[in-house]
């Protein structure tokens, strides 16, 4: 029963995030990358009900935004994503010409 209640509560959070959550944008591209409720609590920021509309959606990386002018009273946490993997083959023992 506890498991079912917990699952129901989780689903309610996801639904709430879809309805009232903040739109999250990729800081580099300004493209929307999902919705979530951002909840500061006990010195941490909790990401609740993150939902990305893309199929098998990507996940987000939080980081502090850079500042053109030093601002001492405010810093901003933004979100971005990892790029799609596109790494070359790398076989130190097998490559005939590793310098290529």
């Amino acid at each position: 029963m506890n498991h079912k209640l917990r699952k129901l509560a989780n689903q309610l959070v996801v639904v709430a995030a879809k309805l009232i959550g903040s739109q999250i944008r990729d800081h580099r591209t300004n493209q929307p990358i999902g919705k979530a409720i951002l909840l500061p609590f006990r010195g941490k920021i909790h990401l609740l009900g993150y939902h990305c509309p893309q199929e098998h959606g990507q996940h987000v990386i939080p980081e502090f935004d850079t500042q053109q002018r030093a601002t001492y009273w405010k810093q901003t946490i933004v979100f971005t994503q990892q790029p799609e993997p596109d790494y070359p083959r790398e076989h130190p023992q097998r490559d005939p010409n590793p310098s290529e």
Partner: protein
Amino acid sequence: MILTHQSRTAVENMLTHWNRIVPIENIAVAYGGPLETFESIEHPHKAFITSDRLRTTDHQRERQSYHPIFQAIAAQKLTDGHEHVHLTEFDHIPLQNNINELQETFLQNEGADVLGYAVRRVDRTNNPHYLTHVHEARFLDFIASISVRKDKRAIFSMLGFGTFWTKEAFLALANVDEPFPIYLEIFMPTVAHHLGFRLRSFPASSYVSSQATFSSPQVEKAIANGEWFVHPAKDQWTATTT
């Protein structure tokens, strides 16, 4: 290599369908169901997977692994005479008769060793599988111990079904011991990358996400549109004959 746990009749239906596309001697079955059913399956290329690492209930939290399948295939030398391995699940249904040619061509065009669905880099993200693995220091230590890459903290994820491998990459992964439970969606792409192999995603449109079976209009439309697979069609082999 098709992973299944279904009944003998369902497995026969599945093999009949695949045999329209692939010669029967090129198809192997990795079986995760009851032993008596496995023994009743009249197909010469089959492996019975006993490992608890495959037979999980809460697959993500118990960190289900396909590594026993890799090791069984390697041990039984089922890759002998082949250049590529397509490791898939019973509910991932091919829709095109030239499916292997399509996959091989895409692999070659991408210059890749491994193709999968939703291949992502997930380190530093909120990906729950990444977060739970990196919580244990031994995870990054293990990756560093096998890596030929400069960046030993790069972690990847991909879906478990329908992966496509060069034989070299497949056997190299089979040869790595899983030192502690690592979820298959993290283990397969991350270890392959750190062994030096190139990962790429299948085209996003290469499968239809649906439980529909062949008789449905949705699948007929997908075939006409040139889609490669339908997934997860779990009732395909039990509901109907092909």
